[in-house]
């Protein structure tokens, strides 16, 4: 049956992203790719490998190191009917294009009363735990969550990486897409993907593990830390439910609330810094909307309010870990 047909080859997260972009380029003749070194090199990590050979410079642009103009040019292309995939070589560099994202692109639909839409995906490698140091480790999604008009996604599985990328490239709104570079080639998470076209809709969370003792909400690489912590908790006799929200904006509040009705405890885990981070936003919303289901104060485990340091002991010290998550969860369970 075609609807359930799957390939046989296991694929990694990077291949899933690469396939999604290549398939959307084939599907949408108005789609253009822009970024630094995305042509002959295929991008710093190879996500756009092969695209320029297939489509040439008319649709694949190696750009000068000018993030503001990369985004701004994409904005003009969208204004004139194109769909654009923008690669940030590292998501840390997105700050150089910040004004063009939050003031030009994010507001375009709003300020034109719906006349103009911006089908643009700004994607790039993100996240810590790999020794990337201050400028190759960031998760800066909270900057954009605070800028109305942007959707934000962050897949943690191979299936979601492909499905969310395809959904993002078909969305009429600008989407910031956080790819977890530490997952790009991680063998343990490789999956066999469906052969037919599929998407993962934006704004729908995934229950990564079912349980009734506590709800642990996370996204990105931290999902795996949470799943490991859940194994620790299981050995102590507790079943944790782990929710991977997948989309930061829009947030699937329903899935979290439904879980809290069952578990009555909330722990949010996020590798971004604490203050005004998205973990705090989830806590606030659940405090407002699910207070009556909570039997313990909601808690977050985040990176300390520091940059991400380089050498391993320092880096791990400031970031969420399996140990910190396990301890936090136990504290809430025993509250």
């Amino acid at each position, binding site marked *: 049956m075609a609807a359930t047909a799957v390939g046989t080859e296991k694929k990694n997260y990077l291949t899933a992203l690469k396939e999604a972009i290549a398939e959307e380029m084939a599907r949408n003749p108005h789609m253009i790719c822009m970024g630094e070194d995305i042509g002959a090199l295929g991008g710093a990590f190879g996500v756009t490998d092969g695209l320029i050979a297939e489509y040439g410079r008319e649709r694949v642009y190696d750009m000068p190191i*000018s993030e503001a103009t990369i985004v701004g040019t994409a904005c003009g292309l969208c204004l004139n009917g194109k769909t654009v995939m923008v690669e940030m070589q590292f998501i840390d560099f997105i700050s150089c294009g910040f004004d063009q994202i939050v003031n030009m692109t994010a507001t375009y639909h709003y300020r034109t009363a719906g006349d103009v839409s911006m089908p643009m995906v700004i994607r790039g490698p993100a996240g810590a735990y790999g020794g990337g140091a201050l400028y190759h480790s960031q998760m800066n999604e909270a900057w954009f969550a605070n800028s109305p008009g942007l959707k934000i996604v962050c897949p943690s599985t191979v299936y979601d990486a492909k499905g969310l990328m395809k959904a993002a490239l078909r969305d009429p709104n600008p989407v910031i897409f956080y790819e977890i570079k530490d997952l790009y080639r991680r063998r343990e998470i490789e999956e066999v993907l469906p052969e037919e076209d599929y998407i993962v809709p934006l704004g729908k969370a995934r229950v990564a593990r079912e349980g009734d003792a506590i709800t642990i909400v996370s996204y990105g690489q931290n999902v795996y830390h949470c799943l490991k912590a859940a194994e620790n908790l299981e050995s102590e006799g507790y079943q944790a439910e782990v929710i991977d929200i997948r989309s930061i904006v829009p947030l699937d509040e329903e899935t979290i609330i439904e879980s809290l009705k069952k578990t009555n405890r909330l722990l949010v885990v996020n590798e971004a810094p604490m203050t005004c981070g998205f973990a705090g936003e989830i806590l606030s919303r659940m405090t407002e909307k699910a207070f009556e289901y909570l039997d313990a104060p909601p808690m977050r485990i985040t990176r300390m309010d520091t940059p991400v340091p380089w050498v391993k002991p320092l880096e791990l010290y400031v970031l969420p870990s399996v140990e910190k998550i396990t301890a936090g969860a136990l504290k809430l369970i025993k509250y």
Partner: protein
Amino acid sequence: MATTTTDTDPAQAQGTDSPVSRPSDRLTHDDYRELLLQLYLARYFDVRLIKEKKRGRLRGTLYSSHNQEAILVGSLYGLEPMDWISPIHRDMPAFFLKDFKAGWENPDRMGMSIEEVCSQVWGKATSPGRARDNWSHIGSKAKRIIHSTSMLAGTIPAATGVTLADRLNGLNTIAMTFNGEGSTAQGVFHEAINFAAVEKLPVVTIIENNQWAYGTPTHYEYALEDFARRADGYGIPGFVADGQDVIDVYDKVMMAVEHARSGKGPSIVECKTFRAYGHGDHDDDRADRYRPEEEVVEGRKRDPLHVLKERMISMGILTQEEADKHPAENKGAGEVTDADFPPKVVEYLTKGVQFAIKAPLPDETEGAMWVFKED
């Protein structure tokens, strides 16, 4: 760097002393009369709104284009209907002057109607942006006007993008962006022009050098005599125009436009002018804190209306008597009356003003609409 010429004179640009043809040689007497009327209209738009604002009828800040009208009129006059423009705060008349030759009242022309522009000024639902952002922050995808924002120079990348899309679609259009000299210090100004030069995109960057970036003079903004020389650094032509002379603006801009349209890429046209009033009407009465009175008197000496009338008289297109019939030139907003302007100009704008005054405000719930496009 074969295309690099920073010239103040077309003859010099072509490396010859012999008389050269100028784009304005092709202008007819009717063109001159139309240019004069457009200058009147741009001036009348400005002084009328200043008066309306002083009566308390408008909210927001008014950024006067007084004394700089020749730049807008001269730059826009030679464009094709399908070309893109990207005006900024001081260029409000550009929204209706685009494709004005197609007929002031022509509903199909590729510019905004006076009713639409006035609706925006009055903050009404009939504004092209339904009054969601203020003053000049409108645009039109259909009319090919890039929506302006407060981030100056921030729309130059959009101009590169729209022209790139047109090129991919097989259309030979250009985009003309308007910028104050102040915004040339922004990083994105450099980034976008650099990319346009690399890609040979048909982006004409007009610099309205009015000597003042809000309260900061040019010698604190850049260290060049002629700003247009910066074009050398991008490997593109830079032109300098007398911003008070609509014909010189037209000539230099059309050289840039022809360069762009023939596939040679972007260029910069610096139009030297002087800001007649404060940055906005909010600092009109404080501008003397940073600008010496003598400089203001000197800077306003060459009113573009006067400069064009003198040209037309010397060419025999206008008599002195005709020139004196509507003496709007060399007068401040508080001094002119409707009688100083041709009736066609007054009637045209009055129609827009009356439409805007009667138009409804947007429904308050629109404030929360259109954050995202729904599928």
